[in-house]
Structures are given as structure tokens and as C-alpha cells.
């Protein structure tokens, strides 16, 4: 049965022909390549590595980067790609977000010409995988408290510390590690295989199981001076990266919610209880009406944020609102849809519980729901509540 994407307000007509064609291409690819295999990957706790070359071939890695062999897509087309990927699975979308928004984007924005030449074309082609090391075991919502340190020694730096919850850490060819150096936060490109650098896999997850999640351990790791991102100092470096990624997450979470809604609508129409389809019951209809309403609101918000970004008006507070709204609502929608599928909804025969479990992470990472609430509170009142 083919996927019918909810588009209740006909937002299709607000997209350009290119945006629609890109969206449809990724949508078809996800239906053909991700959906049939991702449930098994999720259960086994593996990522579909064999699909990385296909994603690269289509140009999905670093799609919004302009130059260095990358296509330079606008924010709406980029968002649509992530929406469609996360309709497949949050883990697949997370990989593409990290590669593009958290590693390629900072190299483009803050990197030296040599760093850009070396990494951007290779990462676009999927020949190099990147990861982003900001969060630490003891510093999640408070990255400014980071303990990872860099000390200058001759023409290189010595890094010590640990990072946690790092998507693709164990397989990445390059880790962008943020560390404190003389009191200032700087970005370091740490290459796989550097002595003292290891990235053990984090196991036993209930969420994002089709995604590699790792720790990064740095013990007296020597990083050449040339591997420091020259263009940025201070917490604003990683925070600007996060703002890029959060924008994509808002779209992605919406994709997961759309998948859940589509599955619940089909299921309740075909499943019969008390001699009539579940969809004929008022309680079920209310759930469908409410979930579709929230999806539609999320789609409008995301699309408009994309148009704001086109004119450089996608401020971090506006991104916070979309990220917070999409993740929080998508999680509620997934839970409601899981409920509509009854006992069947807990099995891997259906997608809804996988999405639901994934969205717990998506709602938490890159600024928890609560932190985004407080960022909006700060924007509204001028008073920072978390300091």
C-alpha cells in the first residue's frame, strides 16, 4: 500500500517545481529503500550502511551547502528532504542532519579553505562521514559547562575529555569536537585513528536504534593547529550549528508524524470491531481530526520558517519555536496513533511504535522541549530563566 502524505491545506501549491520534484524523489526512494528494511535494522540495532552511497548519489548529504561540489539547495527543499527521510526513520534523518548541518555547515562557515577543500566534497559524496561532539556526560542542556580541554603545545593542541550521545561517532572519519582552550570554546577536527581518540558504541537504547550512537573519548589526543576551525570562538560556534540542525529536525519530526497519521488512518479504516471499522467510532475520529490538525499546523509553521530563512530571518528563537512545536506535537501524535493501532501497534509489523520511540530522542536532543520553552521565554521577556 503506497504512502499517502497528509497535505490538508494543499501546501504543495506553495512549493516550487524543484522543491516538489526533490520531495517526490526522496519520498519514492524512502518508500522503496528505507521502509521495507528499517524495521529489521531497528530491531537489530543497525544502520542501513548500504544506503549511504545511494543517498550520496542523489546528493542528499550536505544538500544545502553551496559550492565544493554540493548542490546549494534552499532551506525549504532541504527541509523537505529531511521530512521525507524521517518519514522513513529518525535515525536515517539524524545521520543526514549531522553530516550536513553539524559537520559540513560549520566547516563551510568557520573552516579554513584547506579544511573545506579536504572535507566538503568527500562528505557530500559519502566518502567521509562526520560526527559532532558537543554534549558531554555531565553537560547536556548546559554545554557552556563543558570540561573537555585543549592545551596549545607547539604547533598542535592536546585534547582531553569525553563527549556523549554522538550520532555516527564510532564510524566517523572526522569528529568536530568542541573544547575549551584558554577559557574559550573552539572547534577541532579530530580524525579517526588519531592516537588517544576512541569512540565506543553506546548500546542498550530503546530509541533511535537504527542509528549509531557513541561516546567520544579523548586522552592526550594531539590535534594539529591546522585542524582548528579558525573562524569562530565561543559557545556561539556550536550554537549556530545547532540552529541549522534544529531547523531540519522540525521538518523531520513532522515527517515522522505524517507517517504515523497515514498508518493510523489506514489501520482504523480497515480494522473492524463491533462489526464496523474502527474509523467509524467517534473517539477514533476525534484522534484522527486532532492529529491531522496538529500535523497541518506544523507543516505551515515549518514551511513559513523555511521562507523566513530564505531572507535570513530564520532567527534562532523562531527555529526554537518550530523545533519545540514539531517535536513535542509529533511525539504526542505518535503516541495517539500507537493507541489507535491497539495491540498491533506495539509490533514491528507497523511503524508507529518505532517512530514513537524515536521521537522521544528527537524531542530531547538538540535542545530539549523545556530548554526551547525557556529560549522562547527569554525571547519574549528578555529574562533568561536558565542562568
Amino acid at each position, binding site marked *: 500500500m*503506497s504512502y499517502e502524505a497528509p497535505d490538508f491545506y494543499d501546501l504543495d501549491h506553495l512549493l516550487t*517545481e*524543484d522543491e516538489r*520534484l*526533490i520531495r517526490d*524523489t526522496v519520498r*519514492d*526512494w524512502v518508500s522503496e529503500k528505507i521502509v521495507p528494511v528499517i524495521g529489521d535494522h531497528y530491531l537489530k540495532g543497525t544502520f542501513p550502511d548500504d544506503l549511504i552511497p*545511494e543517498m550520496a*548519489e*542523489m*546528493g*542528499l548529504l550536505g*544538500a544545502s551547502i553551496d559550492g565544493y561540489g554540493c*548542490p546549494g*539547495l534552499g532551506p525549504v*527543499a532541504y527541509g523537505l528532504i529531511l521530512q521525507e527521510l524521517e518519514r522513513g526513520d529518525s535515525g536515517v534523518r539524524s545521520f543526514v542532519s549531522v553530516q550536513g548541518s553539524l559537520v559540513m555547515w560549520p566547516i563551510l562557515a568557520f573552516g579554513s579553505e584547506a579544511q573545506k577543500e579536504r572535507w566538503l566534497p568527500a562528505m557530500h559524496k559519502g566518502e567521509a562521514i562526520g560526527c559532532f561532539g558537543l554534549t558531554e556526560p555531565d553537560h547536556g542542556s548546559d554545554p557552556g559547562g563543558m570540561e573537555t580541554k585543549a592545551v596549545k603545545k607547539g604547533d598542535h593542541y592536546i585534547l582531553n575529555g569525553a563527549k556523549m550521545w554522538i550520532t555516527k561517532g564510532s564510524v566517523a572519519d572526522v569528529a568536530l569536537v568542541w573544547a575549551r582552550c584558554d577559557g574559550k570554546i573552539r572547534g577541532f577536527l579530530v580524525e579517526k585513528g588519531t592516537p588517544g581518540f576512541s569512540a565506543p558504541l553506546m548500546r542498550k537504547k530503546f530509541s533511535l536504534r537504527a542509528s549509531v550512537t557513541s561516546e567520544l573519548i579523548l586522552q592526550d589526543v594531539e590535534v594539529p593547529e591546522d585542524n582548528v576551525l579558525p573562524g569562530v570562538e565561543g559557545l556561539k560556534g556550536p550554537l549556530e550549528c545547532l540552529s541549522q540542525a534544529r531547523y531540519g529536525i522540525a521538518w523531520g519530526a513532522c515527517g515522522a508524524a505524517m507517517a504515523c497519521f497515514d498508518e493510523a488512518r489506514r489501520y482504523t479504516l480497515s480494522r473492524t470491531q463491533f462489526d464496523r471499522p474502527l474509523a467509524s467510532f467517534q473517539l477514533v475520529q476525534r484522534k484522527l481530526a486532532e492529529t491531522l490538525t496538529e500535523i497541518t499546523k506544523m507543516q505551515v509553521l515549518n514551511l513559513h520558517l523555511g521562507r523566513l530563512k530564505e531572507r535570513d530571518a530564520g532567527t534562532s528563537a523562531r527555529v526554537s519555536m518550530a523545533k519545540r512545536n514539531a517535536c513535542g506535537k509529533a511525539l504526542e501524535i505518535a503516541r495517539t496513533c500507537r493507541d489507535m493501532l491497539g495491540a498491533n501497534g506495539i509490533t514491528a509489523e507497523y511503524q508507529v511504535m518505532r517512530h514513537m520511540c524515536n521521537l522521544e530522542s528527537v524531542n530531547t536532543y538538540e535542545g530539549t522541549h523545556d530548554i526551547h520553552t525557556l529560549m522562547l521565554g527569554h525571547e519574549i521577556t528578555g529574562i533568561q530563566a536558565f542562568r
Partner: protein
Amino acid sequence: MDIIVCMKRVPDSAARIQIGGDGRSIDSAGLEHIISPYDEMALERALQIKEEQGGTVTVVCLGAAEAAKEIRQALAMGADQALHIKSDVGYRDPLTTARILADHLKGRTFDMLLFGKQSIDADNSAIGVMVATLLDLPAVSLVTKLDAADGKATVEREAEAGAEVIEVALPAVFTAQRGLAEPRYPSIKGIMQAKKKPIEEAQAPEEAALITLEALEPPPARTGGRIVGEGVEAVPELVRLLRSEAKVL
């Protein structure tokens, strides 16, 4: 190697088809369309040959103005240019269609002219060979393998319980069977470049129809099944009904 691929815009095979109010056309409201899959396979093989040995791929599409979307997709996959012969006629008999295509192809130079073996909506399996006849070109249908070099093509063609291997001098016409090539997904760069590629437009003539379509009917609705009994005891009755009523045994 210069290759022309003729492609048709057809309703998505996964779409639910509704018959229009006139009883002789498909209701296109909200209906998704695609490049007919066999045409897409032909296009894919053409693109592969172009990538291997250089040359051009031109797509030709006779169809409604809306077919611009499918033409754009073909260009995004890698075709270099397109000819869109616009037509608002919903149903046209195969010979008339073939004549229009042949009129537009006459005078163009190409090494190979490819079609899908059939469109998945009309299913006539006629156009490719008819155009070949009108252009006085050799044609091989149901091709599952196609290689071309030095002015000739070597093809494999599906035959009863086997395959035929055929060599043919170019230019020639081929119709694609499943197995010829697996169509690619367009890349983002391909999509972005597609809008810069030229689409030549022409208007299909309004000709007298050789065949008129009188009515379209949906397949009869499936009726519910019947339980003839339970357990082993039901088997004789089931076999009897399968033989006498369903006539499948």
C-alpha cells in the same frame, strides 16, 4: 550515439482510478501521474549508453500540458533536451498516435529510437513498431539487453521460453521490456539543472479519429467470499464448486 526516447505520461499504477462523468475518460482530479514504467526503463538504458560513449538523449512526449512535469523528471534523470507535442485529446487510437510521432521524428537524425514495450494505461503494445514502420526503420520489440557500437546494435529479445540475440544496423527502433535497465532516481543536481534544459514545444494536429472510445467501465466490484463448511468435510463441496461454479479446476 544520439538517442531519442518516446515517453508517455500515465496515471500512477498505485492510484485509485475513477471514471469521469462522461463515462469515457478517467477522472484526473487529484490523480498522480508518472512516466510509464517501460518508457522509463528505455530512458534509463539510453542514459547509460550516453554516459558510456557520449552523445545525446532527447525525450519526446505526446501529451497534455501537464506532462511537462514528467518531461522535467526525464531531464532531471539526465536527458539533454525534450520535445513536447501538446495535445488535449484524452484517447487517441494507436495508428493516429504513431503518425503524429512519426511526423515529428521525420527529419531528425538519431542512431536509436526507444519506446517502452507498452504504456501501462492503454496497453496497446503498438506505438513503437508502428512508428518504425512509418519511418521505414528496422524494429526489435521486447528488448531486455541493448548494446550499440560501430553503427550497429546487439540486442537480446524475450522469446517463448528463451531469448533471441539479434544484430541490427542503426538507426533502428527498440521497445523496452522489463529487465533492460533499472531506472535511477534523479539527483538533486539533476533536478536543479533540468529547468535550464530546452523543451521544444509543438501542437498535435486535430485529426479525425480512426477509432472512438465509447465507454469505460470499472471492473465489477468483488463480492464477498462464501464459506461452504468447516474442516475436512467441506473439501468435497469446495472441490465441486471450484469445478462446476468457478470452473477453475
